[in-house]
């Protein structure tokens, strides 16, 4: 399977995303989490900043949730944004990358790297 590398700052964790997979789904599949709410692009809680690369939303995101200005400035919703290729993202200061399942982090992350 062709995967994309999703690099998450400031922790510098790299996860392998599957084609068409929103970033938040990659995190959860790999045993990680960060701040999220509705998982459907409605609450805006999962905002992160895109540092490198580009993404496409997997479903419509309302401009009331993510304004065109924010989007132009690189703000993305992890529950909707699907990487177009390798990407680097930075979590906000009041957000943290959590490894909720070291088991998954170990086996999913490692096997997808090999």
């Amino acid at each position: 399977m062709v995967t994309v590398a999703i690099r998450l700052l400031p922790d510098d964790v790299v996860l392998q995303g599957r084609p068409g997979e929103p970033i938040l789904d990659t995190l959860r599949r790999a045993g990680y989490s960060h701040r999220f709410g509705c998982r459907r692009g409605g609450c805006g809680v999962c905002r992160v900043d895109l540092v490198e690369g580009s993404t496409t939303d997997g479903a419509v995101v309302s401009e009331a949730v993510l304004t065109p200005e924010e989007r132009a400035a690189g703000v993305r919703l992890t529950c909707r944004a699907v990487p177009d290729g390798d990407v680097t993202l930075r979590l906000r200061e009041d957000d943290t990358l959590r490894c909720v399942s070291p088991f998954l982090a170990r086996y999913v992350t490692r096997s997808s790297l090999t």
Partner: protein
Amino acid sequence: MSIMRLGYVHARVTDLEASRSHYSDTLGMEVKAEGDGKLYLKGWDEYDHHSVVLEEGGVGAVKFGFKVSHATDLEQYERALQQFGVTVERMAKGDNLATGDGVRFISPTNHVFELYHEMDYAGTETGTLNPQTFPRHLRGVGVPRLDHTLITGDDVEGMERLFIDCFGWHISERVIASPEEPTCLATFLSAGHKAHDLAILKGPDSKLHHFAFILDDWNAVLRAGDLFAMDDVPVDIGPTRHGITRGTTIYFFDPSGNRNEVFAGSYTSCADFPTITWTADQLGRAVFYHARELNDRFLSVFT
């Protein structure tokens, strides 16, 4: 003179087709009309034309409709609202599809509410003459009816005053910061005999926390949870129980991120019952009785 119930919720959705699948296939509501970028749906045990209106574009609530018991109530409530001092206007028959004329007002929390007395009669599949207990071929969860809504805003106490002074509602339960600092953080308002028809949580104005559908019992709530797993519906929490209202529950999200709830097994409330009070230090138990702690989404995820 009385408000009988929350008659409709009109919400915004980002994708009408994804919403149709959620509300119609998963929740089992019936699409009664569509067009103009809107869907009108009803639960199987609702007699009126619709209880949910979905409008394409954005997220969150557009407005909430309360149905009053007599046509003459509208004038009286209009006067009461004017006296209370909120923005009130008349709405004409046909402003809302299949809905009669009424009174529209903006609440202290900046939500739009509409009072109306007439809506086209749609009836139910089981009918009103020697009916069976439920329609045999319900889809998905098969929600019978809309039950209540929880919204957020700053002036929680203002909402209490408005619904008590203008409409004669009562407060079944409320959350205060502490006995020494009795700021109201949440209130559960009853139009009649339910633990709540409308609840307000302290938070940003104009926002929707959730709207809820009633189910028969805990087994139906559990079965709804199974269907959410099958249909990949994001579950916020549950199945569990609320301390407040004692209802069993699942919070989940529609395809646009609006929070929905299925709810069952609350208690009967009366206007002469004392108000149950919860303090903020017990909020975890008050909201999610078993876990006894809030998840990080309850106080931060709104549309």
